[in-house]
């Protein structure tokens, strides 16, 4: 039976919804807050910001992360910047325009009310970060500088060279450690969440493995905030960190949280191409480079000349040609797909032929090498190290790679999942980016959720339902049995003792998902891959080999648990892609395209969120949340 998902969107005009909702929320008296324990899993932008803010408010918070320090969460690697509707550049920006651009950029598959609130909060985020001492780029007069990102015609992106994520995360981390100093937050690093504990239908705690001692620990709380990031590593090769994984979110799904739009994954257009089968990850080259870099391929198929030998009139600056008004700054899904088309046509460059050029020659001539280095120095340096070529001299070779997942656990306007007391923030939820995220919006969403939304929602939850949240002991009852289950699950993996490594299986899975649930999807490919994933998974459970101890630090065991979950998630992604009979944003179904190869949406049948309910051995159930567009008119996206 399909249920109607209630997003709990507040009444009133869109500009007033958040303010009026905040007014109507229940509050918890400051003296009572210390009586409530909150668990936050993950210490990236969303998790660290939420834990720090709730600590400041007086709650007793436990913050968990898998890294050896909260400062290392993968938000740290975000390069280009963070959007905010400050209109400091006087170029016509506004909250409404950021809202509009984000809804349109997401190809009309996000919830208007959430996106509007995100745009509203964007300005407060910049204020907060500057107050913390985040060293954003500045102009000579001392005021903040901005640059442009894809899908927008204004300059609203704040940045700290190519290390914006690092600086924002270190800001949130410093706020978190300040609370650790004040003893309102206990930071528990090197812990991996392996299950969610539900008591009387509410999320009441988690089971974690201590990644040093191997001990299985139980932790109880009045509410759980999940901020564990996205699931891009299901593809094996992605721009995610090696340890980024979906396990915490997936185990919540298996405990009853619905998983929304799993097939909405973002393939980022500008990454350093794959060079060999030993490759462990892919490195992004920030979208900000498209401010000054021009994307091109040779007009001639199979042209093997060095780029400097190809004259101007034999080059195809295809983004500028096809999309004259946005040019190189079209949204990510569009830029990625066009790169794939060029490579599929045989116009790819480099030894593998699976790359296109991103050329800075004109910008260097126009602005000088120094100005380019000032803006992108660390990115150019990173490229030179990895590719072994100097991008000041030869154009970068780039190709799309998995970067971000718009899908995630379903949440309502309060960021609460379908399990009461389980809140989901940042990339781990599905809420704001629809079918395609615009550049510099992930940092904005992570911090909006963490600093400004989750702390209010938690207060409202405890304020209104606190009397039903009974005291519990993490050493008793269900915690004991769940702990035993988790431990037995690990035993099961260790005992297989087969002949293939975890990485070997992960690579095979990733290849299948990339080819069939990647930049381009078809019904036949999806049907086939569902079967293939099942058989690789069966093989994994028969033949994986994990060495090392269970009761001490063991990275192979950690990876095995994550890959086991990736198999199940991959299958759901393929099912979701198969049932969504349209193309939108990053989801491109070959059967649904315009004559110009653009994504063709089907608003009459698919203007909804697909939220999947776990049903054990049975097929999962697909529920719908209908999306209404009262402000941004449903039109076909055009960047021409």
């Amino acid at each position, binding site marked *: 039976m399909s249920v109607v998902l209630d997003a709990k969107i507040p009444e009133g005009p869109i500009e007033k919804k958040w303010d009026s909702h905040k007014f109507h929320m229940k509050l918890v008296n400051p003296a009572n807050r210390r009586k409530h324990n909150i668990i936050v899993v993950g210490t990236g932008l969303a998790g660290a910001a939420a834990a720090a803010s709730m600590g400041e408010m007086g709650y007793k918070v436990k913050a968990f992360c898998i890294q050896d320090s909260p*400062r290392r969460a993968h938000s740290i690697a975000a390069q280009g910047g963070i959007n905010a509707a400050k209109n400091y550049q006087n170029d016509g920006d506004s909250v409404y325009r950021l809202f509009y651009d984000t809804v349109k950029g997401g190809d009309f598959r996000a919830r208007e009310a959430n996106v509007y609130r995100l745009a509203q909060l964007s300005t407060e985020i*910049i204020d907060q970060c500057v*107050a913390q001492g985040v060293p954003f780029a500045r102009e000579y007069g001392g005021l903040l500088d901005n640059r442009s990102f894809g899908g927008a015609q204004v300059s609203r992106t704040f940045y700290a060279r190519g290390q914006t994520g690092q600086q924002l995360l270190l800001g949130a981390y410093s706020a978190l450690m300040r609370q650790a100093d004040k003893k309102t937050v206990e930071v528990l690093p090197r812990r991996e969440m392996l299950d969610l504990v539900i008591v009387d239908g509410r999320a009441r705690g988690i089971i974690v493995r201590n990644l040093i001692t191997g001990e299985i620990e139980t932790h109880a709380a009045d509410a759980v905030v999940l901020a564990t990031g996205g699931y891009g590593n299901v593809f094996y090769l992605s721009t995610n*960190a090696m340890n980024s994984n979906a396990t915490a979110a997936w185990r919540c799904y298996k405990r009853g949280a619905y998983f929304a739009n799993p097939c909405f994954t973002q393939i980022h257009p500008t990454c350093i191409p794959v060079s060999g089968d030993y490759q462990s990850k892919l490195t992004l080259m920030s979208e900000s480079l498209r401010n000054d870099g021009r994307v091109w391929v040779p007009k001639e198929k199979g042209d093997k000349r060095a780029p400097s030998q190809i004259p101007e009139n034999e080059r195809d600056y295809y983004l500028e040609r096809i999309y004259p008004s946005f040019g190189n700054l079209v949204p990510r899904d569009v830029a990625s797909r066009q790169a794939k088309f060029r490579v599929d046509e045989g116009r790819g460059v480099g030894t593998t032929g699976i790359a296109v050029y991103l050329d800075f020659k004109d910008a260097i001539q126009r602005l000088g090498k120094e100005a380019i280095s000032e803006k992108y120095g660390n990115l150019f340096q990173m490229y030179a190290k990895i590719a072994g070529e100097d991008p000041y001299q030869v154009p970068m070779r780039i190709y799309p790679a998995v970067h971000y997942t718009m899908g995630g656990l379903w949440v309502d306007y309060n960021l609460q999942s379908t399990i009461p007391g389980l809140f989901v923030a940042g990339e781990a939820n599905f809420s704001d980016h629809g079918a395609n995220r615009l550049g510099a919006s992930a940092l904005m969403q992570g911090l909006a959720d963490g600093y400004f939304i989750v702390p209010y929602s938690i207060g409202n939850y405890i304020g209104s339902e606190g009397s039903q949240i009974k005291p519990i002991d993490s050493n008793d009852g269900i915690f004991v049995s769940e702990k035993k289950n988790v431990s037995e699950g690990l035993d099961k993996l260790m005992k297989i003792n087969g002949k293939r490594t975890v*990485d*070997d299986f992960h690579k095979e899975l990733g290849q299948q998902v990339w080819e069939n649930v990647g930049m381009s999807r078809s019904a036949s490919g999806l049907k086939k891959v569902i079967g293939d994933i099942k058989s690789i998974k069966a093989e994994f459970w028969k033949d994986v080999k994990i060495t090392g101890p269970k009761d001490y630090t063991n990275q*192979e065991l950690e990876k095995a648990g994550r890959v086991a979950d990736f198999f199940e998630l991959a299958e759901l992604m393929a099912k979701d892609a198969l049932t969504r009979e349209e193309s939108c944003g990053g989801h491109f179904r070959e059967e649904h395209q315009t004559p110009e190869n653009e994504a063709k949406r089907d608003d009459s049948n698919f203007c909804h969120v697909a939220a999947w309910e776990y049903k054990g051995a049975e097929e999962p159930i697909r529920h719908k949340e209908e999306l209404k567009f009262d402000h941004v008119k449903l039109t076909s996206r055009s960047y021409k």
Partner: protein
Amino acid sequence: MSEIHKTMTIHLKIWRQKSPNDQGHFIEHTAKNVSEHMSFLELMDVVNQELILKGDDAIEFDHDCREGICGTCSMVINGNPHGPEKATTTCQLHMRKFKDGDHITVEPFRAKAFPVVKDLKVDRTAFDKIITSGGYVSVNTGSAQDANNIPIGKHTADLAFEVAACIGCGACVAACVNGSAALFTSAKVSHMALLPQGQAEREQRVLNMVRTMESLGFGNCSNTGACELSCPKEIPLESIARMNREFYCAEVKERPEKEIGGF
């Protein structure tokens, strides 16, 4: 990319240690067909695959983003934290910097304050404790003024950025004969002391952070400069001079008047 991938044979000597109290020892391993485009950690991945298939434990090492920004990877390669390449983390070190037939020794970061967990993995929580003692501006969520109300000259902002770029990897400690955390601590002290936002807590911050650093088993700084040379983010040595100055000024102010005398 060169037209032909060059491959090479690399002779590795790798530190193995079961637990903090285990004495530890080196193993030798020869890696064949190593592509010049591999990163050093990808070489370690390949070695691990071979070990696992032989039934041995994989070599434990910390790593995560593999983009040189998270500060997770460590390793001392041929005596240098993060290896021989200037301004480069281990994950960004590529095999094209080595030659066919090279012998490479791989060890954990070694310092009293960074106990070995297993093999090449060490415990760096001491760094978090230093930050916890004062590496922040005390501003609660929601209490900030408009961002452009705090103008900061470009030069100052750039200087602050340069030190704020520290990734907290600990190479400075591993490189130091004294196992000092002065470069790490001074990077954060400098970041906050340079900016207007950091002024209110400027003195208490440096006192707390330096004292915490000293209590955690890090050695004293004797200005050898090895930290600056090994730093993948090129945090300048002058940060330590700034920290010392900040510390002395704050300490003098902190003393009761009678102790200083004559004032």
